[in-house]
């Protein structure tokens, strides 16, 4: 087991390395001049200072050297300084990650639990009234872009009904230490709801299809031949064969979760990694952009790793036999 996990970790490191190369290449291709961006807020600068800045940024050095410099700094734990926030990128990521993580986990739990339950209900009552209604709702949800749902939710619950705050993660004007966990959850609620609604449709429909496939399988036929009623069929055989794969799928969906959070956080001005990366791209904040990209790739890779391990444990054939 240890051997398998360490092999996986090696693969992740290789992956992150490749991601960093791609990200760096893309960023280098940009027609934006980093020095210009850096100077945007600073005003006029003398030519001598400009030369100094260019040397600092390494603008005239070949791309490969710049990449290696950046990589060495990374290994020392230094991701550079953000242009927008004028603080070390590491600090920003650490701070904002907690916020984003809370948001993503809430959404993830909601989607996972309610999505699977609804999917099972749809599968059980295939083609009857409950299935048709819920299925149509799911299709509509799948077709709705995250950000539009966020806008509608913002409109409905914050502007019209005034049940929830318009955004941010804490009430404005309060010291961070004074904010209670309930207030954090209060601000978290709408973005989390937005984030979960989009993947929700997908999970529900996938679970439904899996349950239908299971119910059409030969072992279900045999169980029926032995007299099991529909209810016991579902509980004894159907659920285990459907939900466990669905759980693994959930862990593999970290990528969509992160992507969705970019949109949800932007709409609700929620201070997380998502809104930071969007601002970074718009304002050409290269260090921050690279840092968050790497971090998101790590996040997704960990999710996939957990999914693989889980799959190995759940499926007895793979767990005891072939290995990962």
């Amino acid at each position, binding site marked *: 087991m240890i051997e398998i996990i360490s092999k996986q970790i090696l693969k992740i490191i290789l*992956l992150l390395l*490749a*991601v960093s190369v*791609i*990200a760096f290449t*893309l*960023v280098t*291709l*940009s*027609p*934006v001049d980093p020095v210009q961006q850096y100077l945007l807020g600073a005003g006029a600068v003398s030519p001598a200072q400009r030369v100094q800045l260019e040397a600092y940024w390494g603008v005239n050095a070949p791309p490969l050297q710049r990449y290696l410099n950046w990589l060495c700094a990374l290994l020392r734990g230094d991701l550079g300084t953000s242009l927008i926030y004028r603080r070390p990128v590491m600090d920003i990521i650490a701070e904002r990650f907690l916020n984003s993580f809370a948001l993503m986990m809430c959404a993830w739990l909601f989607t996972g639990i309610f999505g699977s339950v609804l999917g099972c209900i749809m599968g059980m009552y295939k*083609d009857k009234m409950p299935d048709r209604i819920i299925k149509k709702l799911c*299709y*509509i949800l*799948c*077709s*709705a*872009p*995250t*950000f*539009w749902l966020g*806008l*509608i939710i*913002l*409109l409905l619950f914050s*502007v019209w009904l005034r049940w929830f705050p*318009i955004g941010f993660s804490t009430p404005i004007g309060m010291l961070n230490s004074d904010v209670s966990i309930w207030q954090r959850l209060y601000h978290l609620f709408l973005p989390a709801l937005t984030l979960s609604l989009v993947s929700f449709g997908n999970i529900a429909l996938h679970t439904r299809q899996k349950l239908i496939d299971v119910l059409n399988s030969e072992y279900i036929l045999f169980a029926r031949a032995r007299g099991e009623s529909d209810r016991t069929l579902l509980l004894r055989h159907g659920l285990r064969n459907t939900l466990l794969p669905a759980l693994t799928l959930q862990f593999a969906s970290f*990528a*969509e979760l*992160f*992507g969705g959070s*970019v*949109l949800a956080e*932007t*709409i609700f001005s929620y201070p997380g990694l998502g809104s930071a*990366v*969007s601002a970074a*791209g*718009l304002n*050409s904040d290269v260090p921050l*952009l690279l840092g*968050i*990209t790497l971090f*998101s*790739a790590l996040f*997704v*890779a960990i999710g*996939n790793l957990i999914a693989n391990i889980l799959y190995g444990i759940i499926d007895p054939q793979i767990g005891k036999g072939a290995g990962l």
Partner: protein
Amino acid sequence: MNQILNCRTLNHRHILVLFTSIIGAMVIMAFLSGKLIPDAAAAVNISQKNLAPSLQHLFGTDWLGRDLFFRTLKGLSTSLTVGVTASLISAVIATLIGIAAAMGSKIIDSLISWLIDLVMGIPHIILLILISFACGRGLKGLLIGIAATHWTSLARLVRAEVLQLRSQQYIAVSRKLGKSNRWILIHHMLPHLFPQILVGVILLFPHAIIHEAAISFLGYGLPPEQPAIGIILSESTKYLSSGVWWPAIFPGLTLIIIVLLVDRLGDHLKLLLNPHTAQEQEDTH
């Protein structure tokens, strides 16, 4: 349904094809109407700003006085164009890569699989932001970005199908008879692959359109003069808190409806083209 069309009994397959044609027609109409509307209809007209929906302005007007109905339709057209073009490019890339992976040597296959894992390892939106950044924002970045992020799952599908086909008996027999790889590809595999790829492409459209709208919303896409739904919606956020709700709701609803229709189109085609599900008797939609 049968009572309505009293003339003859329609079986399930008739109904499916009918629905598919209707949906297809609606999507094409939406696309064309956007292209045919003159620019003047959605022009700036400050005197008419922020009007609520009425008979004159079906969707109301935005803060610059532009009629939202026409602006939405034009935006829809643009979104559809971008989405479809990017999807088609994606599909071509996916097919080529998938076939290369399955027909090439083991090394090439491992390399390509690893590449697919790599691209899927970065969240779509972040990759789109990076590519858009690299191309300096605008239409080029948008097209390249969407094409470069959506080929992965289709490539996996193509690869799996070709791998499975390769192990079939009739392929081995063809080889023994001396047919070249290219011949086998064209005569045996492509007919089998084509329906799957077609369906895969059609199911790609909704994703592409939504991602295009999302990235435009964030500010990475087309300039406001060439409206895409994403831009319209992002502009609407500024005025949301003052109670101007129509720029946010109507364009979004229109997008949802189109995406829904294209999605159902893809699903129905999938049902019709797959020989197993094509036999289903019950109502499945």
